């Protein structure tokens, strides 16, 4: 038995002696996927999110206008054949602008989730595995970041980002989102650390960082996947709120938050400037939440076929 044995390999292994019919134990990921696909919310979420993805990235190719175009013959016009979602006060095409904003929100949401869950996993696992001073120092950093007012700090630092550097915004958002999960990961690491397979690896002389990445973290995959999904919607909501105040994604680039803020000024007499962006944002967050809920139920070992 080598130390890099994968959990999937264990689940599919033949346990019957030769001569008897082979009994295959279904792999864990198959059970989880099956449960996920069997849930109403999971299916709806995937279809909805997939549809929004296609709309966000294929829509601009089909649509006649670019988000940078200004139609000087149509200011604040309602939806029509020329402008599917109408136009803004400055003649921008709402369809193109909204889809561009959705692209940004999707990308930012996914990236922030991956980065913040990754940081949470690494920090939590190292703190829990090594304990002692590593744990203490990482714990202080975690507590300090938990106490700092995230919105204010990001808002203050964001002008320093400059135009177009939205990746820095991703890092800032991720920097304030990993702390709670990292505490959970730390706790789980401390208990996993005492399991036989980790002890075996340790006595074989496998270095600590290798044990963490090969044995500790894969055993928390379910927690981390669910956490990342929840973080997607949290990141989208934070980013759009920041952009709503003009502290997130900046002009000339657009974000759903900025569009909603602009649209709010004209919403009463030109509802299309507001409702398309607001509606798509709500659908986007809803889709991610549906997937997150279904995933959590699917990973839950106590859930059975009767649930949902």
């Amino acid at each position, binding site marked *: 038995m080598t130390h890099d044995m994968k959990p999937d390999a264990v689940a599919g292994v033949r346990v019957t002696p030769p001569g008897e019919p082979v009994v295959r134990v279904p792999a864990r990921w198959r059970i989880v996927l099956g449960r996920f696909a069997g849930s109403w919310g999971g299916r709806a979420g995937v279809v909805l999110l997939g549809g929004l993805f296609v709309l966000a990235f294929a829509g601009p190719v089909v649509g006649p206008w670019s988000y940078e175009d200004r139609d000087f013959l149509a200011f604040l016009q309602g939806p029509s054949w020329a402008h599917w979602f109408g136009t803004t006060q400055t003649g921008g095409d709402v369809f193109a602008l909204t889809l561009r904003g959705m692209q940004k929100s999707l990308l930012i949401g996914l990236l922030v989730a991956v980065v913040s869950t990754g940081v949470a996993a690494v920090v939590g696992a190292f703190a829990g595995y090594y304990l002692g001073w590593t744990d203490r120092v990482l714990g202080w950093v975690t507590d300090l970041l938990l106490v700092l*007012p995230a919105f*204010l700090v990001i*808002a203050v630092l964001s002008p320093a980002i400059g135009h177009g550097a939205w990746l820095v915004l991703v890092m800032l958002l991720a920097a304030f989102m990993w702390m709670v999960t990292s505490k959970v990961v730390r706790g789980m690491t401390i208990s996993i650390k005492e399991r036989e397979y980790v002890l075996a690896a340790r006595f074989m002389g496998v270095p600590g960082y290798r044990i963490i990445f090969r044995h500790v973290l894969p055993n928390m995959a379910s927690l981390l996947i669910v956490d990342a999904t929840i973080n997607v919607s949290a990141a989208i909501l934070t980013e*759009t*709120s920041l952009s709503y*105040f003009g502290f997130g994604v900046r002009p000339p680039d657009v974000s759903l938050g900025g569009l909603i803020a602009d649209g709010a000024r004209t919403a009463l007499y030109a509802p299309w400037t507001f409702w398309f962006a607001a509606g798509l944002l709500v659908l986007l967050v809803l889709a991610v939440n549906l997937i997150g809920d279904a995933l959590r139920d699917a990973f839950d070992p106590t859930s059975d076929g009767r649930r949902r």
Partner: protein
Amino acid sequence: MTRFIIRRVLFGVIVLWLVATTVFLLFFAGPADNVARRLAGPRAPMEVIEQIKDTLGLNRSMWEQYASFLGNLLHGDLGISFISQTPVTTLIMQSLPGTLWLVAGAAVLWMAAGITGGVISAVRPRSVLDRTTTVLVLAGISLPTFVLGMLMVYLALSVFPWTGLQPGPYISPLLDLKGFLQVMIMPWVCLAVVQAAVYVRLTRGSMLDTLGEDYIRTARAKGAPERRVTYRHGLRAALTPVVTQFGVDIGTLLGGVVVTESVFGLQGLGQLMIRSVRYGDLPVIIGAAILASAFIVVANIVVDVAYSFLDPRVRLA
């Protein structure tokens, strides 16, 4: 108990000191010219920048600046706003009541709705009521605050104008109770809807876990009425994670309910923050940041003490 509280308070002071140092480094580290330029704005002439360097003592060494920054902080002196030329403490005291009332009112609403909803769906899982609650919760957590807020403002102004509900700055309830309610009801509901969704979920999950515990079976076996089992034995222990979340939320929100305040034009700490960030009013930003952190630190201490009252298994050492 006393020893525990003293230790937690000391730890809180250290965290606050770390926060103050971080904030100081964020804004004041770097060459004096850069800092002065940041304070004066990009178009300020050279004389103004020199003047700022003089009045703020930016020419002194980092250590001297840091010492005087901490010294002023200890005396409760947060400096004077660059924009309005009033002391930061005055500005904060003016904005505090709006935020306090907003959080207090909303907290009552969301705790009542959240715990009731959570208990109802946990006691009868998979019933129609439970499923309805789940759908409502999903809607609640998927609605961004600013979208919900704007929807409410729109409805109040164009569909239900006779209610008199309107967005506007905070009015003291002592001066004008009716005006106070007309301004506060919408922000209360808006904030509470989003929060309640989280609390229903938390209460339901925690309650389901608790009701599966051995001591619940014991309580039933000894013949305790179901009501007593649910509330006395179940809910009391199930509330522990809810209380943690509540403490963290109250602490965070008291530091400024940025989105809700600005959608409804309520003049609170969140609005003060947004304004000061927009105009680059550094002393106000620093004051608001430290106050917000202090709220969180205090809330955490209160939560830890509250644990011991709720869950008899928790012993404070």
